[in-house]
Each structure stands twice: as structure tokens, then as C-alpha cells.
């Protein structure tokens, strides 16, 4: 009998715990606001069931040590760093050179302007919104060490480049982009006010019958009291609250759908830029220049296409070049990039692993050469990616290797890294 009473006492003690244990939102909630947002998420998830943009931080493709064959249309908002790592580049024969491969830094005019004004380029919404055009222009500088032979076009060079985004429909700060979202937020907000009223009244009627809902909300749902109040809920009361939420989430679901559709739409818009990039050398070796138009377009949520069309020129500086050197080459290149997952967090962070397939055609004097590349981008953390590429060419001299060339490096997009560290 005593044992049964003790058992019954223990069951009675644990019952309230079981009741609120059904509420997965309560343990981590800092306040009623967090709890109600969590309940809305759960109700929508239960109702629904299971359920970009390319910014180049690498060295431009004109650099022989670049891990990319095809350039993308935009640069990171702040500063991007691209490095081809030690041991995989083609150092001069017999050289004991252990320096890393090509290294480049890309910065937008916006980041330089922000530095000049002493502004945090990612924290000041006025400054960001008012200097949209400054983000259209980016500069790249870098260094490419000597390659096989170390003379002529294989000698060390300075990488320099400018890119101007002509068509930028992915700019999130354009006011017209968010008008429909703002409208959806207003409707959802009004619906939430009614939802909150209904939930508060249900709680007040169940847990403090006879009193007013305002008094209950004031005394029992503040930061210091809400957990104790909500722990009194049983499973039945929680069901009634979820039913009240379910009856008032039409505008909420519409708003979430509108936001999701907008993110997808913005990411899928085309982007076009013009770029000049070059390998500049001293007076004893020729310079190489690449002028091109670049188009980025998303074919599907996980599949993007990039095209380059332009001209490669060699400034021979009146030097005598090898007889087979073409000083003017028409170039067309394209790539398809497949993401293995949806980008994790909308427009800003969490890039998935991607696999790219590229083709580069060069036409000079009726002769056509091609290169193909397979490239894997492995994200390490937000803003930091390790690109690994393998390139094949129909002519050995195109990639200065017999048939196949592998490159391995890393890129840092400091805007994404800074956003993560905030």
C-alpha cells in the first residue's frame, strides 16, 4: 500500500513535466515572444509536411594558375582572396621554388569607399543602400609566379583586372524588389495581432479564469513569469492553442511563400558584366590581356550557367615571340554548375558543395583549341571555399602540361565570413 502511494505520488509529480514536455518550444524560450514564434513555426511545419548568386573570389581565368576556367559576373561585396596552393603549380624546371601559386585579391569600389569613409560596409544600411553603383565595380590585383621555363609568357606576372556589372537585377536593396514583401508582412502582422489575442485569451481563460486577459498577460507572461505559467499547460490546452494558431496563419503562410519566391526569383535573375583582366610583365616579356562579356543565369534552383565571350590579346612589346604564338584569339567559354544542396540560409550564407563542368574554346587564324574542366568547390565555412579543378586540353601547350592539369586552392569571401562572425 505504501509502495503504491509512493508510486502514485511520483506519477503525480511527473505529470506536469510530461504535459509541458510535449511543448518543445518552451525549454529554450527566453520569452513569450520566442515561444509563440516557435509554436507558429511548428504549426506551419505540421501543416506543410516534410518539406546564388555567383560571386567570384578566385583569380581571373586569364591567370594560368587560376582554379577557374570561366569567370563569373560579380565579385564579393567586400574583399575576396584567391590562392592556388603550394605544390601543384608548374614551377620552372629544375627550380627549388616553393612559393605558392597565383594569389589575387578582389575588392569592390564599394569596399574601398567604405574604408575611405571609415564605415563598416556590412553594418550601415544607409551607406549600403546609397552606394549601390559602387558595388558594380571591382578590382583584382595579384601575382602569378613563373611557370615552366620561366621566360616569355611563362615568366612571373602581375595579375590586374577590372570588372563592371552592367545588368544587376539581383540587388536586394532595390526598393521595388520588396514592395510585395512589405505588403505581405503588413497582412501577416495584423493576423499575428489577432492570433496573439486569441492565444492570450485561451491561456487566461484556462489558467486564470475570471480575470481579464490583459491582467493575465501583464502578470503571467512576462520574461520572469511566462515559463512557470506555460508549464501549467496540459496537452489538451496546447492542442487548443495550436488550433487557434492554425486558424490564423493564412497570411503568415502567404508571407513566407512570398519571401521564399522572392529569394528564388532574385537568385535566378540574369547578371551581365564586362571585364578586363591581364597578366602584366616587365619589358622583357609580353603582356596578356583578356576582354570579355560575362553572363550568369540560373537555369534551375541548383543549376547555374555562366558564359564568357571575348578576345585575348598579347602585347608583344616588339619582342620576338615563338613562331606559333597567336597575339589575337577569339574566346568563348561556358560552364554549368550543379549544387548538391539548396543554399542553406537564403541570400547570405552557407554555400553547398558544387560541381562545375566548363568548356573553353579559343579560335585564332582558323584554328580552334579547347580546354575542358571539372571543378569541385568545397565550402569549409561561410565565405571560405576550397576549389579543386582538373583541366584537359586538346593541345598540351594550352595548359603547359602533357594532358591533364590539377589545381587546388582556396578562396575567401570576407563579406560572408564577416556576416558569420557578427
Amino acid at each position, binding site marked *: 500500500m505504501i509502495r503504491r502511494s509512493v508510486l502514485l505520488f511520483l506519477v503525480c509529480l511527473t505529470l506536469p513535466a510530461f504535459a509541458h514536455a510535449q511543448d518543445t518550444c518552451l525549454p*529554450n524560450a*527566453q*520569452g*513569450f*515572444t*520566442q515561444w*509563440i*514564434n*516557435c509554436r*507558429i*513555426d511548428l504549426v506551419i511545419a505540421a501543416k506543410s509536411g516534410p518539406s546564388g548568386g555567383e560571386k567570384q573570389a578566385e583569380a581571373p581565368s586569364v591567370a594560368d594558375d587560376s582554379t577557374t576556367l570561366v569567370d563569373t559576373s560579380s565579385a564579393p561585396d567586400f574583399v575576396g582572396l584567391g590562392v592556388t596552393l603550394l605544390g601543384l603549380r608548374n614551377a620552372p624546371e629544375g627550380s627549388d621554388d616553393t612559393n605558392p601559386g597565383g594569389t589575387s585579391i578582389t575588392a569592390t569600389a564599394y569596399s574601398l569607399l567604405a574604408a575611405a569613409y571609415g564605415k563598416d*560596409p*556590412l*553594418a*550601415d*544600411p*544607409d551607406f*549600403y*543602400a546609397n552606394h549601390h553603383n559602387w558595388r558594380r565595380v571591382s578590382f583584382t590585383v595579384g601575382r602569378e609566379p613563373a611557370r615552366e621555363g620561366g621566360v616569355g609568357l611563362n615568366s612571373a606576372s602581375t595579375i590586374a583586372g577590372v570588372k563592371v556589372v552592367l545588368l544587376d537585377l539581383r540587388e*536586394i*536593396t532595390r526598393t521595388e524588389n*520588396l*514592395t510585395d*514583401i*512589405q505588403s505581405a*508582412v*503588413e497582412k*501577416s*502582422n*495584423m493576423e*499575428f*495581432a*489577432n492570433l*496573439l*489575442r486569441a492565444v*492570450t485569451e485561451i491561456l487566461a481563460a484556462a489558467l486564470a479564469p475570471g480575470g*481579464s*486577459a*490583459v491582467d*493575465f498577460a*501583464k502578470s503571467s*507572461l*512576462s*520574461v520572469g513569469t511566462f515559463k512557470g505559467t506555460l508549464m501549467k499547460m496540459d496537452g489538451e490546452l496546447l492542442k487548443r492553442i495550436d488550433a487557434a494558431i492554425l486558424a490564423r496563419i493564412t497570411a503568415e503562410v502567404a*508571407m*513566407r511563400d512570398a*519571401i*521564399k519566391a*522572392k*529569394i528564388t526569383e532574385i537568385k535566378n535573375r540574369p547578371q551581365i558584366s564586362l571585364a578586363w583582366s591581364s597578366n602584366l610583365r616587365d619589358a622583357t616579356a609580353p603582356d596578356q590581356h583578356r576582354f570579355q562579356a560575362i553572363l550568369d543565369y540560373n537555369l534551375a534552383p541548383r543549376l547555374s550557367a555562366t558564359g564568357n565571350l571575348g578576345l585575348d590579346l598579347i602585347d608583344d612589346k616588339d619582342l620576338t615571340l615563338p613562331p606559333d604564338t597567336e597575339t589575337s584569339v577569339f574566346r568563348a567559354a561556358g560552364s554549368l554548375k550543379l549544387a548538391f544542396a539548396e543554399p*542553406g*540560409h*537564403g*541570400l*547570405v*550564407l552557407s554555400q553547398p558543395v558544387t560541381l562545375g563542368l566548363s568548356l573553353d574554346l579559343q579560335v585564332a587564324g582558323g584554328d580552334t583549341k579547347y580546354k575542358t574542366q571539372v571543378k569541385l568547390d568545397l565550402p569549409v565555412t561561410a565565405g571560405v571555399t576550397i576549389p579543386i579543378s582538373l583541366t584537359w586540353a586538346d593541345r598540351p601547350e594550352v595548359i603547359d602540361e602533357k594532358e591533364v592539369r590539377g589545381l587546388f586552392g582556396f578562396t575567401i569571401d570576407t*563579406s560572408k565570413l564577416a*556576416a*558569420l562572425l*557578427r
Partner: protein
Amino acid sequence: MAKTPPPDFGKAGRLKIRTDEQGALVNVTAGEFIRLKLTVKGPGQAVFAFGCQHRPLWSAPDFPGHPQKVYEWHHFKQPGDADAPADTYALTIAFIGGITSYTFLMETVAKSGTVVATLKDFDASSTAAQDVLHTGIMLLVS
């Protein structure tokens, strides 16, 4: 390696709540009113709406100079501001505009300008563009 804690809201939201009242009395006849201030940080434009159960009251584009860093407005200062003696007011903030942090402060202020009570005071931040956060309070006007 330390396990990343789950978000406080949405996909990547973080909250730092200092005050989160759910009900309050506002003595409008004595000249009390509500002062609201939303401070934003991030490379973009704020997307938010403030309203009651009956109508939208303020949203980001209503403010001259939008986008800006600080949005401040009052309620119950004008005749007709109260739609009902007891009404629930709500604020919804969205992160799609590129804003990564909102700080919301809501206070009851006496006619003299002194703060009677802090009703809401929290920081909400997120790096996920799809994240939204709602907050609200039931106000009884006398």
C-alpha cells in the same frame, strides 16, 4: 568540436531579450503614450510592419528617408489612435532586405516625457534572408 546551438527563431535567428511584456495599461487620458524605436544594422533595407488587430499602422516605407538606421514613432498621441479599449499591437520584422540585426525598444512614456515603463527591449539578428519574427502586446487604454 562544440555543437552549434539551435536558432532562437527561424533558420538562423538569434534573440537577446531584456524585456518582453505581454500586457500593459496606458493612461491615455493622463497624456501617456507609447514610444517605439527600431534600430537596424546590416547591408540592406529594413522590412517591418507595426499594427493592431484592426489595421496596419506603420511600415518601413512610411518613414521619410527610408532606408535608415533608426525608425522611431509614437502611438496614442493623436486622437483616434486607439481602435478599442483593449487591443493587441504587433510588430513583424523580416530579414529579406539584407538587414542582419534589429533592436526594438517599446516604452510607455508620460506626458512630461519621462519613461513610465519599458514594455519591449530585445535584439533580434539573423543571417537567413527568409527569417521573420513577430512580437506583440495587449494594451488596455484608460
